């Protein structure tokens, strides 16, 4: 068992990735930041709308869309992939809504049924057409971010932009950032007060499907590098950590980008040290950050709560607002 954890070589783990191997690990870390950043920004809104598990659902169900798009066009171009993923994402949203509205099956069960079915179909399709589809079943689950630098570089007028997947992901991150900047007020109001948003002339259905479309695009561009399940962590962890530190949405956005940067740097370090899947290591690093903040956050942290409880003059307002999950409801 000890053979599994390599000795900690400070130079190889802490220095080498950022000096002699920068051309490899630099791009991996940059890719990790782009993925986690884009996912984290979209994830903030998912969490505000209590739709965090829609991220889970969409990330699983884009798989059949991707495989179908590949089989139809027999190319792995960006456009067919996005089209397939958008179609699958839209179908998932509609299927969940209709199962939950037309029958008495609750929304969580509807989510579980829909995404597992679509994912199962996707896996069977990948197995059936294994020769034609360049996706192997494990890669579908946790991706392979380390293959990113192998792609050819994109040059723009002599300026090296980076490997193709990174440029694509960075473009998605930029697009998400610009969309949030442009529609910040609408997103903010419709997340917190849908009634007010409607009275101010924002179409909530349009907002919902717009968010779902953004989610599908982010998920599909992240799919290759982090897979269907780890992307859920990328959607939730940055925003969850940030929201333990601030209650202002704009600050939460910035903090989730900071979380994305730290966790991708830390993830590369962890992955190099333990020699394991780097995408998974990034998630573990992000989770460690979350755990740290959960304990020490000035307002919401466990330590702060404990100290508040010891001073009875200040009744803890936080302990009453969330219902215990374990209660049988």
């Amino acid at each position, binding site marked *: 068992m000890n053979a599994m954890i390599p000795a900690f070589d400070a130079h190889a783990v802490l220095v080498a990735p950022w000096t002699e191997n920068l051309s490899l690990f630099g791009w991996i870390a940059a890719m990790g930041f782009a993925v986690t950043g884009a996912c984290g920004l979209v994830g903030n809104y998912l*969490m505000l709308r209590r739709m*965090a598990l829609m991220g889970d659902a969409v990330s699983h169900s884009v798989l059949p869309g991707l495989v179908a798009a590949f089989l139809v066009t027999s190319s792995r171009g960006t456009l067919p992939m996005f089209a397939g993923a958008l179609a699958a994402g839209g179908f998932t949203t509609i299927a969940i809504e209709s199962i939950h509205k037309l029958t008495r099956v609750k929304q*969580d069960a509807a989510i579980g*049924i829909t995404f*597992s079915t679509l994912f199962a179909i996707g896996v069977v399709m990948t197995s059936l057409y294994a020769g034609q589809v360049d996706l192997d079943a494990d890669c579908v689950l946790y991706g392979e971010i380390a293959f990113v630098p192998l792609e050819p570089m994109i040059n723009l007028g002599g300026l090296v932009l980076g490997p193709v997947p990174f440029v694509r992901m960075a473009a998605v991150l930029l697009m998400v950032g610009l969309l949030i900047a442009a529609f910040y007020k609408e997103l903010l109001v419709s997340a917190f007060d849908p009634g007010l948003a409607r009275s101010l002339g924002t179409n909530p259905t349009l907002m919902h499907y717009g968010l779902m479309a953004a989610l599908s695009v982010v998920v599909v561009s992240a799919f290759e590098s982090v897979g269907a399940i780890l992307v859920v962590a990328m959607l939730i962890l940055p925003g969850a950590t940030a929201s333990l530190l601030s209650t202002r949405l704009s600050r939460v956005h910035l903090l989730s980008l900071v979380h994305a940067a730290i966790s991708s740097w830390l993830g590369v370090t962890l992955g190099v040290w333990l020699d394991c899947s780097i995408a998974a290591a990034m998630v573990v690093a992000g989770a460690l950050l979350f755990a740290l903040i959960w304990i020490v956050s000035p307002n919401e942290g466990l330590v702060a709560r404990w100290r508040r409880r010891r001073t009875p003059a200040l009744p803890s307002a936080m302990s009453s607002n*969330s219902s215990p999950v374990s209660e049988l409801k």
Partner: protein
Amino acid sequence: MSRTASRALLILLVAAATSPVEAAGVREFVSSDWSTQIVRFLTLQDASVRFALIGSVLLGLSCGLLGSFIVVRKMALMGDALSHAVLPGVAIGFLWNMTKDPLAILIGATIAGLLGTFLVSAISRTTRLKEDAALGLVLATFFAIGICLVTMIQRLPTGNKSGLDKFLFGQAAALSAEDITLMALVTTIAVVMVVAFYKELLASSFDPGFSRSIGLPTRWIHHGLMLLLTASVVIALQAVGVVLVSAMLITPASAAYLLTDRLHRLVVMAAAFGVGAGMAGAFLSFVGPSLPTGPLMVIGASALFSAAFLFGPRHGVVARWMLRRRGAARTQRENTLKSMFHVMEATQFRTEGVTLHDLAIRRRETIDDAQRLGRDLVRHGLATLSGDALYFTPPGRKRAGEIVRNHRLWELYLTQSANIAADHVHEDAEKIEHILGESVVRDLERRLGYATFDPHGRAIPSARAIHGGDARREGGNGTGK
């Protein structure tokens, strides 16, 4: 239910124990065409087929059984979180002595699963994060830890043949005799526990407040259920895989939930659906040897769910659509009856029949429409048509009186008890008149002091007039004033 289930289980246990073990773990199927594969499967020649089949029956049974409780308790996605959270436990169980020892894996995975559910409730209790975010967070984080461990194990010289990758998507054909024994043990415990504590589970699932008040330890019931759930997820892992095992919990139970309202039937049906889906998955995966078992089982379960979703007798989409159409048709007939009543009331019930012409004028429709509506009444025995005049049959007259009475009573109720202006009550009464039952009507009449006139001054047909079939005298007197 469960007595037969447990008897079947015992038989299976015996079958599992007596199955020859020499061919355990055989996976190198001779490649042959699918028809011979089908024959091989159905004749159960190979031990691996027997193992795969028994394994899928057992996992379908335990997952369906326990899944029905998480579905009715609205914690469906807890199953999802649980199934992903066990992965690091599987890896650590493997590391215990570097073999796929089912017991070590079961213990490791159970601990990891319980830790995961504990963390979900701890996070959502102590932070502002909502439950769904906590679920997703724990699910993906544990999965990532598991992936780190699995990729580290696969790097080891012995790890490459560990077969841990089979835990991701499942391969029922890889089940060994020890796996089957463990599965049978866990399934037996699950069945026994559910039978023994059925009443407690029922009460705490549907009314936690009540069950707490009668002194049931709801917290412990919850933890016990979680423990059983984790154990059944773990035994299902090898056949279904980490990723899709939650579907085997949710989907068969949801399908059963659409078909019945009684928990004991729900549990039995969910277990049966789980067994069916499991067997179908094992069969298909054997016929096409390169296919993983888990996704095929899930697709089988989803097919059952879709069938229940579309064709369920009460909650199915088709049934509800037909019910709505029948309701709309009945409302339309009742509106026609009401119009006939209005026409007769206008002549102070001096005529016996209503001509199609008068009906069409009253309803502002064409004669053709009126004729169509009249024929519909005739078809349902509510009126007779002779010449171009419609005549009430006794049930038709009664129903017409009831509808008019309901309408006017409701208008009166709204104006008197809810202080709504008399010109605003008609629309609401148009809807409620088809729905009010006799006991509500009695209550309304009593509250309104057996009033005889509605807010517009028209008579409310009395119970005697309706049931005596004598709408003429009562109504006639009313409109005369």
